[in-house]
């Protein structure tokens, strides 16, 4: 086997240019495969992280939906929580909100703007001003460029604005990109809690259940109980939220995209494979004398077939390895422009090498077989 691999390298090295051109198709095909998978994996990773793919295994989530859009209040109350906790199989209930931001009205001079706001994050990149964690009772506010333009028509600091009747000083202005969602304003954690947090309705009830509990039954039962006993059943509806379903749908879309691009990559690899077949045919006819000599000195037709198959596979695997390196470079370049990070997984590497090997085996087989089946006396007449 080692002998055959060495012979393969020698033979490939003999016709470097020709073989490199043959490999080019494989290099491009494999580099595409690496890029596709890296972007797909990176995207999936970012999305599932963004979706809050926490451990939902032992949780049943009941959502409250107000009947009319005007009425954004309402949700689960402490009494509802007590009712839900009594359902058999439920260990603990936590009321949360699907919306973490509060809505408010901002006023500057005579201008009134509806806006969303939240407590300040740890880090925030500003286009104007300096960012720091504000102390408890600080009346500072960081606002988006968008809000600044609506209120003052330009980015200016230290203006006084009124948010739901409380006066705040503009400390800094930040940019909201299309990709990263942010609310219109950030205030200090303490101020947010004191003035705005109570506005946020608890529209989610997270039921922690035991590992053996029947989630489906608990979900149905909880919805039934709330429809009967929920304190705000008259102004809203209750339903079981299924995060698995959402991620499943998303995965399906991602898979469809991956299949489509894989199809394109498949076609380029098919063309590359035909190139490999062509070059292997040329190699076989150029080396008829060598085949004859090897057969005369003990090589079986299987030895000859394997020899050329190994050459074809080595050729494709070299192409595959170069393609992987090329793919790495491309992914590094793509990452500079993507809003998320494309990641190359071990699976992508294994798949690429397997595909290269398969192309070598499939497209090398017919020429190798031709070499193995050639008539010996005819081969020995070659000069």
């Amino acid at each position, binding site marked *: 086997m080692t002998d055959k691999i060495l012979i393969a390298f020698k033979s490939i090295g003999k016709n470097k240019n020709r073989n490199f051109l043959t490999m080019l198709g494989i290099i491009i095909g494999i580099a595409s495969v690496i890029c596709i998978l890296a972007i797909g994996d990176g995207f999936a990773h970012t999305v599932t992280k963004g979706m809050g793919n926490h451990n939902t295994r032992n949780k049943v989530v009941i959502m409250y939906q107000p009947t009319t859009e005007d009425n954004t209040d309402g949700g689960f109350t402490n009494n509802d929580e007590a009712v839900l906790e009594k359902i058999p199989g439920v260990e603990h209930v936590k009321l949360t909100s699907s919306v973490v931001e509060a809505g408010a009205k901002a006023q500057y001079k005579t201008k009134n703007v509806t806006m969303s706001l939240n407590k300040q994050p740890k880090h925030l990149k500003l286009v104007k001003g300096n960012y720091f964690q504000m102390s408890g009772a600080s009346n500072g506010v960081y606002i988006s460029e968008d809000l600044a333009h609506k209120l003052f028509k330009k980015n200016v600091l230290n203006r006084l604005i009124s948010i739901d009747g409380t006066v705040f000083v503009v400390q800094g202005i930040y940019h909201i990109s299309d990709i990263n969602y942010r609310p219109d304003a950030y205030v200090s954690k303490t101020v947010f809690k004191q003035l705005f947090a109570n506005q946020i309705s608890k529209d989610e009830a997270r039921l922690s259940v035991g590992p053996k509990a029947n989630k489906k039954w608990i979900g149905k039962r909880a919805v039934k109980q709330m429809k009967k006993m929920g304190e705000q059943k008259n102004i809203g509806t209750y339903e079981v939220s299924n995060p698995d379903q959402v991620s499943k749908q998303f995965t399906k879309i991602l898979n469809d995209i991956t299949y489509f691009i894989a199809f394109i990559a498949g076609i380029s690899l098919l063309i590359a494979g035909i190139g490999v077949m062509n070059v292997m045919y040329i190699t076989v006819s150029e080396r008829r004398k060598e085949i004859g000599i090897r057969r005369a*000195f003990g*090589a079986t037709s299987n030895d000859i077939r394997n020899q050329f198959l190994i050459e074809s596979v080595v050729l494709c695997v070299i192409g595959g390895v170069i393609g992987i390196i090329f793919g790495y470079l491309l992914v590094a370049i793509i990452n500079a422009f993507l809003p998320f990070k494309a990641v190359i997984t071990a699976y992508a590497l294994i798949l690429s090498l397997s595909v290269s090997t398969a192309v070598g085996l499939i497209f090398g087989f017919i020429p190798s077989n031709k070499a193995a089946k050639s008539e010996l006396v005819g081969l020995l007449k070659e000069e």
Partner: protein
Amino acid sequence: MLKVTNIGKTYGKFTALKNINLEVADGEFLAIMGPSGSGKSTLINILGLLDQSYTGEYLLKNKNYKTVSDNFLSRIRGDQLGFVFQNFKLLTTYNVYENIEIPLIYSKKEQNNKRELVEDVIEKVGLKGKEKNRPSELSGGQQQRVAIARAIVNHPNLVIADEPTGALDSKTSKEIMDIFTKLNQDGTTIIMVTHDSEVAEYAMRTVYIRDGRLYNDEKSVKKS
């Protein structure tokens, strides 16, 4: 070593060999002489198990290999036979060492040290120091030595040589024939095809072939 009974071979309507009967003993050095087109190469292709489409019976070491599989035949060739082809037939992209090593790659004989075997045979044919040279860097005589070394590296029972001195001058021919003589003295059976009577004199026995028929001496060829 081998026994040939009533061997015949035709290419379409052309009869290449007819009623060939020949016996070669172990350790013999046989020369087959004849003009070109007489059927010499066809005969040694059959004797060397390179061509299996013939009529009649051929026994090598008392075994008939006519109906064995192609792969089995390859193994027999690799382990029992050695070939020295016309015009050397060396692989030009391989060096001396790599050319000689070929039979050992496929051999099923138990060999502990292939490297030692190749080096031994290189010394035997007087090519020490040329291991890394390509055939194009060698003289005709040296290339023929490489071809002989390749034929004997796996210690075959029978060496078949087709015009081993055909492309060489008389001085180099003598050197090459000395190697064959020495090889034969060491116990290897040799069958050699030649059209040069001086070269044939190195053999113990000479048979003649003409128009596909075999004759045991020159007189009977002339009579025919």
